């Protein structure tokens, strides 16, 4: 499966997302967003699992994300 980047609004939310996803069994890393998404200096979480499932998990925990990109 490809890497999927969830762009986050802040490093704090990126860390919070990573911690939460790790705690429920999903591997996740925090990385600099690899392309300019408009506002600059962004952080993303990178996952290899189904992005729809990950998105659902983040929404369940009220962790906002800005966009989803696959590379």
């Amino acid at each position, binding site marked *: 499966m490809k890497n999927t980047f969830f762009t986050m*609004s*802040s*490093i*704090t*939310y990126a*860390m*919070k997302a990573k*911690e939460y996803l790790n705690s429920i069994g999903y591997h996740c890393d*925090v*990385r*600099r967003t690899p392309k*300019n998404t*408009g*506002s*600059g*200096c*962004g*952080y993303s979480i990178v996952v290899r699992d189904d992005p729809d499932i990950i998105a659902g998990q983040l929404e369940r925990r009220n962790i906002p994300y800005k966009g989803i990109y696959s590379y």
Partner: protein
Amino acid sequence: MDSRKTVNFDNSAGTYPKPDTVRKSVADAIRTLGGNPGRGGHALSVQAAERIYRVRKAAAQFFGAETENVAFVPNCTYALNMAVKGLMQSGGHIIISGWEHNSVSRPVYALTRRNGVKCSVAEIYPDTQRTVEGIEKLIRSDTLCVCCTAASNVTGRILPYSEIAELCKRRRIAFVCDCAQAAGVLPVRVGNGISFICVPGQKGLYGPAGTGLLVSSGEYALSTIIEGGTGATSGELVQTPQMPEKLESGTLNTAGLVGLGTGIEFVKNRGMANILRHEAELCRRFEQGIERLGAQVYDREMPRVPIVAFNISGFTSEETAAELSRGGFALRGGMHCAALAHESLGTGKRGAVRFSPSVFSTQAQVDALLNFMEQRFGKHTREKSRT
């Protein structure tokens, strides 16, 4: 005088000594955390960001907040300024208590001069209901905020902050709670009417100086009083809107914050109730000792955090503190940056001397202080009482 031999009974200004774990964690952070947290994608930056996040989470759990609602600030004064000015930037009415530190009264005074803010000062009575009713009577249609200390930095008097919070919740008004003396000994948490908790790192949380927390319940958005680099939304001129970066412009004090996180863990492990019990016992011992010397103890009958404010007959508070310093004991005399509180206490001219132990203070140290005071002040007060 060798300051290393000085016994610190001025822990209300900053706990010292610090726990070994705090000292070691700060040293370790300086040695190993070289990156600027949230300021890059390289390994050093991410490593520092992960460590900072762990501190943020520990603080959030300690004060009952969501992680993103914990903002790191340089000290409690910054937290109070950011909360009060962030709420009142466009005017309106604020209520403060008559027991506030200058870190509340001065920014509020500045707001009244510059922003057209109106302020009422509420009296605090021994009777909680009377205090809360008094505050409620001061609420107006344009009241936006009540700001009050949980415990006085002068006498330690505990204000009815939970009841004031309930009132604020019922009247839908923000409540900013100054927890400079309460954090680490009283179980203060955001929610149930407490909108913001402002905390210094270097006092009851046993962290280093230069650290502090502004903890929010998430119910009220603050306007910023400082803008700048946040590591997020860098392509835009408008300040980053997300918490906590919104309130954290500029580089964080990584090593200090790591120490603060370790301090919070220290307090959790010791247990707030145990810390309070130990310090309160030392205060009782000290109080009984100085009353035998004829000292006047303030707010003696009030519920208090572990602080004893007193004066010795025939001496100004500064003279007493200076004499104790010569004997190797650090106690603070004067006004304690709290003119309003001293005015309420009736010590506006004279000030008072403040004794405040920490979890590391011992009975033997208190007895040594009392012996010294007996030598220096006992004779004088006995002569004074005969004339």
